[in-house]
């Protein structure tokens, strides 16, 4: 009789059980990785603050344009919202709708990255490149790291979009999209901090 207990417990984990368990573990592991990544951003913020006064006598108030920064912020916030709609569609099992929303997310994400690159490029050719001062080094590192993360997220959205288009909305694909969602919203939170602590004090 005791063997039956073993069976029910662990002797024979069914495929569904072990798949469910793998999803839980991956989500937990992904949170840990996000924490590790958050520390990288925190340290870059700290470096930026420590460097904020090393401006090599340049003015920091003329560097940024409010409309551009506002547009970037809106694009990223919109992408967060569209990703939310995609998540709703996924949990409702609506594959086509999920793909449309993911497409919207990647379009606004891509526009954000393009605007970010053009901003950094414009600064670099206007004598405000990362080598000019400690302030600019810290700024470029932070924005560049964030932009690289968003670009990585874009590649990931495209890949997962292809996956559900080709293979359907399997539970494992849904869990991948869930983790991608964590990543995407995390990047929006980082951007809110960049907007509040880096741009706003120099725009107001």
């Amino acid at each position: 009789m005791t063997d039956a207990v073993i069976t029910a417990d662990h002797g024979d984990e069914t495929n569904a059980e072990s798949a469910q368990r793998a999803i839980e573990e991956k989500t937990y592991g992904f949170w840990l990785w996000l924490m590790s990544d958050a520390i990288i951003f925190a340290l870059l913020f700290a470096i930026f603050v420590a460097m904020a006064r090393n401006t090599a006598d340049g003015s920091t108030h003329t560097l940024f344009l409010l409309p551009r920064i506002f547009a970037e912020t809106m694009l990223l916030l919109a992408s967060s919202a569209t990703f939310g709609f995609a998540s709703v569609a996924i949990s409702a099992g609506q594959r086509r709708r999920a793909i449309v929303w993911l497409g919207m997310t990647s379009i606004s994400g891509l526009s954000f990255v393009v605007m970010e690159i053009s901003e950094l490029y414009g600064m670099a050719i206007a004598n405000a490149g990362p080598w000019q001062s400690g302030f600019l080094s810290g700024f470029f590192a932070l924005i560049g790291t964030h932009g690289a993360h968003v670009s990585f997220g874009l590649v990931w959205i495209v890949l997962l979009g292809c996956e559900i288009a080709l293979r359907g909305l399997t539970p494992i694909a849904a869990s991948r999209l869930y983790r991608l969602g964590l990543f995407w919203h995390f990047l929006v939170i980082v951007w809110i901090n960049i907007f509040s602590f880096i741009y706003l004090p120099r725009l107001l």
Partner: protein
Amino acid sequence: MLGKLTIDALPFYSGVAMAGALTVVCGALGVVAIITWLGRWRFLWSEWLTSLDHKKIGIMYVILALIMLVRGVVDALMIRTQQAFAFEPHGYLPPDHFNQIFTSHATIMMFFVAMPFVLGLFSIVIPQQIGARRVAFPFMNSAGLWLTVSGATLVMISLVVGRFSTAYWTAYPPQSGMQFSPDVGVDYWIWAVLLSSVGSILAGICFLVTIVKRRAPGMRLMMMPLFTWTALCASILIIFAYPSLIVAAALLGLDRHLGTQFFAGSDGVLNYISLFWIWGHPHVYILILPACGIYSEVVATFSGRRLFGYKSLVYSMVAITGLSLVVWLHHFYTIGSGVDVNAFFGRAAPLIAVPTIVTIVCWSLTIYLGQVKFSVPMLFTLGFIVTFLVGGITGFLFAVIPPSIHDTTFRVAHFHNLLIPGALFGYFAGYQYWFPKAFGFRLEEKWGRRAFWCWIVGFCLAFMPLYILGFMGMPQRLNRSDVADWQPYLIVAQAGVLFIVCGVTFLAIQIGVSIRDRKTLAASSNDPWNGRTLEWATASPPATYNFAAVPHVQGIDPWWTLKQAGTLDHRSARFHDIIMPGKSSAGIMLGAMSFVFAFAMIWQIWWLAAAGGLGIFAAVLSQTFHDHAGQRIPASEVEAIESRRGVSPALGREART
């Protein structure tokens, strides 16, 4: 076409460097030749290099650590020889070459001996200790290994192609900047550190999730073996601390190649030093805590009793983990951070002595109350307890007394005192203790004892004189000196390192002798030490799945309890299919492509870097969309494997009886 890489990159500048390069090349070619001659490439590839079995990955980690230990000890021998004889005349090493050896010794010992040793022991032991069949993320475990291997390969290849950093293992700017280190040495350092850091974070996440999510039913946190506890603490520290090293190394690279201003000027230098030690101090505990875990297992097993003060030990480990994150500034008191800042860190640092003393007392009382068997793991443990006290006390001196001993050889002696007895002896104890678990036969005792005595005598001879020299004012890292009073002490230290070389040799002989006598040493290898924790419930070497029936745990030392209850001879009447992870070549491809990418970035061979980058992407992608459940091992095969074991403990029954 080849970027900065020209024929001048070969080490023609010194005969000694040329000899080193030839040794590396011949060693590598020799290994390739032997494997080809034996015709074992296919076996090696399919059974080991692509394996996702945590035990095999762990064994490969430890092999890497032992190979790199030999390189690190040879570096140490060269450093000591130079310092012993470089009085007035220059010794045999030019300053630039001496500094390369100095840097590579520490870089190798930290990143490619200590870390792989720790992670390897985690990988072999942790799943078995918690009653799990596998780690949570087998591919990440493999990726972590191969990234570490490619980092180590970068350091080794720097002997042959180009040169290594001369900016010491801490790579402080401005010395590590373009102005003072224009060659590729610092770039080698940066990429080796980056690759191994990413590997370590992957491993840290893998083990933390494994411990949290895969413990056997019934095993609550306060029932986990001490080694598992320290693995949990170390994994948390890895996840939190390593990002700081990644940031420091990456920004240093940007400063060097893009001309950014992160570490320019005195503020910038301070930023680098803070970033480095925000990682560096927890890193000390990432290395020492697992050793403390090993000592705890060894002390309990060889004293034949439950650990005295299990809870106190756990709380101490957790307290050390927390404190280790807030004391980093004590690595650079003398830099002038201001009175308040120094005062905070100067009070926080000695606090670590409190939990440390608790652990020492617990181990001592376990030994005092038990009946001790002086096997090799126990010798290393006792050697640690005695010498570590000296290391602890000298650390205390750093925290409280004026700075005259800072940046002298006193500091060199102090941190070797913590990292040789505190960490390395622990890994040796664990290596001797778990070797029969991994391979099915014990290591030979006589050569183990000889190795131990060489190590401890060598350690004392090599580093006690450095304490004295520190008080006499000898700065660290001198490549030559003109003070006659120092020389006798340096010669004693040189004798010490010769003992350590003997210690390494004896460890090698021990492996040879043990393989020769493996039949006699295999006796009772399933549980050779009368162990207490669950890893001794599996076969030695364990089946792929470790446990045919998953154990139920009701307290600490579950295997001991089970043996006392005498329920060992029950056989599990029915076996079931077990799903295990299969193989994957993505891990080794990721490591290889990362190596190509890093090497190309160092030498600025852009087309190769692009190829390497694509290769990394492809390796990760091939794994990402792999929805395999793994390999199913049919119940009949499990039964066949289990019936080949003499005793098949029906651990699953315990919950019911």
